[in-house]
């Protein structure tokens, strides 16, 4: 299972852990606000080879129905996936906000 954005809630005193460990992948805040360019996967070209999945430093790429899928809540726009894609299936496009 991949991490997903949880609804933000306030933790009571007892719910705050005694140490700094907690359920893996418990994410409450999207972390991609400073991304200026975004990777866009061409579903026609992508062959699902998983090279981008292996190289992504943020672990935001998964393979769905044989194609790369990018989680834009956490993608920082570094462009490594586009660089590593040998068949040019990923293009970096300017963010339009």
């Amino acid at each position, binding site marked *: 299972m991949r991490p997903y954005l949880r609804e933000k809630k306030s*933790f009571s*005193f007892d719910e705050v852990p005694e*140490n*700094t*460990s*907690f*359920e*893996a992948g418990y994410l409450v805040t999207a972390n991609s606000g400073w991304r200026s360019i975004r990777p866009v996967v061409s579903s026609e070209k992508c062959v699902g080879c998983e090279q981008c999945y292996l190289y992504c430093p943020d672990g935001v790429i998964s393979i769905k129905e044989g194609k790369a899928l990018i989680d834009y809540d956490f993608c920082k726009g570094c462009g490594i996936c586009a660089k590593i894609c040998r068949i040019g299936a990923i293009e970096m496009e300017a963010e339009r906000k």
Partner: protein
Amino acid sequence: MKKFLSGNEAFAEGIRLARPQVISAYPITPQTIVVERLSEMVEDGSLKAEYVHVESEHSAMSCAIGASAAGARAFTATSSQGLLYMAECLYYAAGGRFPIVMMNADRSTALPWNIYGDQRDSLSQLDSGWIQAYAENAQEALDLALMSYRIAEDKRVSTPYMANLDGFILTHTYETVDIPDSEQADRFLPPYETDNRIDFENPKNMAFSAGPDTNSIFKYKEHKGILAAKEVISETEKDFAEIFGREYTGLIENYRTDDAEYVIVTLGSIAGLCRETADRLRESGVKAGVVRIRYMRPFPNEEIAEVLSNVKSYAVLEKDISFGNEGAVFTNVNSALKKAGVSVKGYNYIGGLGGQNISASDIEKIYSDIVNGTDDVNFIGIGDEENGK
């Protein structure tokens, strides 16, 4: 088994008996021998541990944190500049509640460069969240090594533990030390078990961030953990006495304080000379006593206030100066008295900086000064006619 050992060697023997699974360390005078001995024990198989050669103290502590986060019992040791270099990681270890044990050989900090003993290195880290113990002799050093993991790993505490030995005076001088056998040690100290670790069956985020909404709750729990060490230290020492036959007295150790009028409060190896001096002064009618602080964190607030409540005056003798104020121990002692509503005049003596010798006559002079009244903060050897000032 009795052996003739230095403080460093005695501590290494205590750690061998505690069976750490990972040791990461970088050598620095006067700590070097403790990690050299441990590396020899790993080499000859008498200690089954992963010995990690790291490139710095920052890495040594980072490695210990990683080991602890994998559920291992971890050990490291350092001194002086090395402690300061790993300072960032001390806070990580404490905030992450990783019960790492570290020996620190108390040594001066630069500049001027100096390798000899004082307590300015460890006392500068009082706020890092670590339990801080100060040994007086090699036997206590070994015993602290063995007790440290029991205290640090207790679920109520889960706090890293720094055992401090005066550089050279303790780390490099030899005395007869009783080394317990490993069956006794195993009975005293069970293997480390924790939920605060990487677990493939139950994946967790480790060492995460916490925003303004919960941060103070984490810090409050960290504070409660180190405060709980007080009770756990007392229980641990009781069990220790039953198994090994040596008794310790908790956060402080009092000497001839029952009827004392003038008391020196100190910590570390100088306490022995203070007691001898107190004995001599008692023969000439001065009601002298000594309080040795064994733990600076958690701080013995109630114990200090109780023992000093009926004295005429006291001196805090420490190898530390918080520049621009006074010695850090003096500040802590005064705060304990103020909170308890005890109003007794106290004086601060800063001595032993950079390995400066503190003699019996220096200590005698402290007692005579506090009988007659003197400056609030005094540096031993400064302004003394004997020193030609």
